[in-house]
């Protein structure tokens, strides 16, 4: 009866090759959407296929995407941070304060990043140490961080950032390739490697899929979450540097409403809002899709709110269509 006497069977590593799996994925669906939008844009406006114009269009998504990468990891791990736009406001304000005290560009950047990290640490501590749900915590800190910015700045503004500070948001590295775009591309690679190739990335998935299971498997779940909150804060700080540099000034209302666009980008990128699955390539494509949609419609002078209808429909449609399709097929069988 005892089974271990029989010779063990061989279990193959994989049934489908990784290539095959990729072809069937969300990313390819989204890529098709992106290509479709690209073609439509080209047909709709003679101004679309222009290197400088396309370069300008990237500003529609680069800052949001920087945060979206970190947010993707956070959401995969089963948490969320709605305070990112407010972190930008506070980090930008902190940079303004530093600028008034005579800080040069390197110090300004450090201040921006450090403020972002601090905000992330605050969110992370509330979530991991007090065990509070992150959606609620960050709705609170969303008001708190921006509120602090209002307290500091009131109805004033910081302007007069040093000339070389403008490089981050207005500089070009090579021809039409902007500094922001290069930062975006580098981060895409770094986050892609982090999530998909490292053991940390693996634990992120485990935590999101089953936090209890991950804890029982010896993963320091709280530490993983804390790191992700810090990372999201850091990326918001970086976005603050870029945005402040691009605007050349700071007001407390800076980046308002951006959190929802970041979350939309992440979800559109195929990240499961309930945690456990998603990929960085997906988010990268989603960033392009959103950038292309808004820019393409902008060229036709379509009002922003009508664009957001498209984004909203895309968000629901891209998730709903495959489900409707499989329901319809099941009914036919």
């Amino acid at each position, binding site marked *: 009866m005892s089974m271990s006497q029989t010779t063990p069977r061989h279990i193959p590593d994989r049934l489908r090759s990784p290539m095959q799996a990729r072809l069937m994925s969300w990313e390819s669906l989204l890529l098709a959407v992106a290509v479709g939008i690209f073609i439509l844009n080209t047909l709709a406006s003679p101004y679309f296929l222009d290197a400088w114009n396309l370069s*300008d269009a990237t500003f529609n998504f680069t800052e949001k995407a920087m945060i979206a990468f970190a947010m993707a990891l956070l959401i995969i791990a089963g948490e969320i941070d709605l305070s990112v736009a407010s972190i930008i406001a506070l980090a930008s304000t902190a940079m303004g304060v530093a600028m008034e005290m005579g800080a040069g560009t390197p110090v300004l950047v450090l201040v921006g990043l450090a403020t972002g990290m601090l905000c992330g640490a605050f969110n992370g501590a509330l979530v991991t140490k007090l065990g509070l749900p992150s959606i609620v915590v960050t709705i609170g800190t969303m008001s708190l961080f921006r509120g602090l910015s209002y307290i500091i700045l009131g*109805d004033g503004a910081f302007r007069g950032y040093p000339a070389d500070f403008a490089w981050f948001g207005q500089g070009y590295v090579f021809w039409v390739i902007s500094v922001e775009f290069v930062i975006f591309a580098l981060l895409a690679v770094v986050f892609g490697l982090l999530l998909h190739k490292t053991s940390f990335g693996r634990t992120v998935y485990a935590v999101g899929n089953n936090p209890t299971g991950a804890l029982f498997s010896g993963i320091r779940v709280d530490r993983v979450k804390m790191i992700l909150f810090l990372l999201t804060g850091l990326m918001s700080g970086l976005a603050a540097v870029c945005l402040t540099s691009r605007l050349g000034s700071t007001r407390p209302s800076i980046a308002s409403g951006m959190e929802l666009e970041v979350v939309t980008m992440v979800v559109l990128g195929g990240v499961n809002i309930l945690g456990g699955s998603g990929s960085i390539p997906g988010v990268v494509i989603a960033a392009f899709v959103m950038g292309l949609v808004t820019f393409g419609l902008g060229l036709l002078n379509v*009002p922003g709110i009508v664009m957001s209808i498209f984004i909203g429909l895309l968000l629901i449609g891209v998730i709903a269509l495959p489900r409707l399709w499989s329901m319809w097929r099941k009914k036919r069988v």
Partner: protein
Amino acid sequence: EDMRIALVVKALGIGFFEAAAKGAEEAAEELGGVEIIYTGPVDTTAEGQIEVINSLIAQRVDAIAISANDTDALVPTLKKAMQRGITVISWDSGVADDGRMAHLNPSSNALIGNMIVKLAADHLPDGGDVAVLSATTTSTNQNIWIDEMTKVLGNYPGINVVSTVYGDDLADKSYREATGLMQSHPDLDAIIAPTSVGIVAAAQAVADAGNIGKVNVTGLGLPSEMAGAIESGASKSFAIWNPIDLGYSATMLAHQLATEAATAEPGAEIAIGRMGTITLDDSNAAAMADPFVYDASNIADFKDIF
């Protein structure tokens, strides 16, 4: 090919700007060969305007005439537009000097500042307490007007500004702030709201609090939106320049500069069609005309126009 002039407003859907767009169309017709692109973000944010400007640059429009949501944040983008050969002017709400070639004030700021306090003082011969309900804390023109108003307060003895609050150009917040003003200052005699959203909300709050006749709401508003308040007596009078004229003038100015019929430099005298001529000051800014006062006697003539 037509010359394309983009009229960028603070946000779409605001009556004041809709009227300005009408004026712009009027100018285009008069000029001939001019196409107006009327556009703007949905909410009054600088980021929204930047995206709009970027797509205008991409379309290589000939001129951009903007009423800005933020003096400073738009400067880099507008500079980029000028580098790409686009004529940029601001109107109504300005941007910092290096972000535009010229700026068209609806009226002189000093005049407006004086006007809003005068409107209140005219009905307070013995002086009294007034409060200011502004738009957002960052609205450029409101802040300037309030500054100008403060400068001339000395000319109105007995008028006492007790508080300045911000309704963020949101109806509910403005309403709440106005209500708060009446509570915290029981002796309040007038609310000055130099913003078209705020003045309507304040009038509503005064009416709801049963303070008609006791608290006078005044400031800057549109006849179409304020008709009810004048009728009920919540507002005795208010002022505004003609937004149609403003849109018309901005378009004319942009056209003059874009066709290089005029150059933007201090002291330049530029013809703006039926509105006559304006003169640019040291910062390349000019004023269009004096604000016009509306009250029960004339409101009916204007409420269907803008």
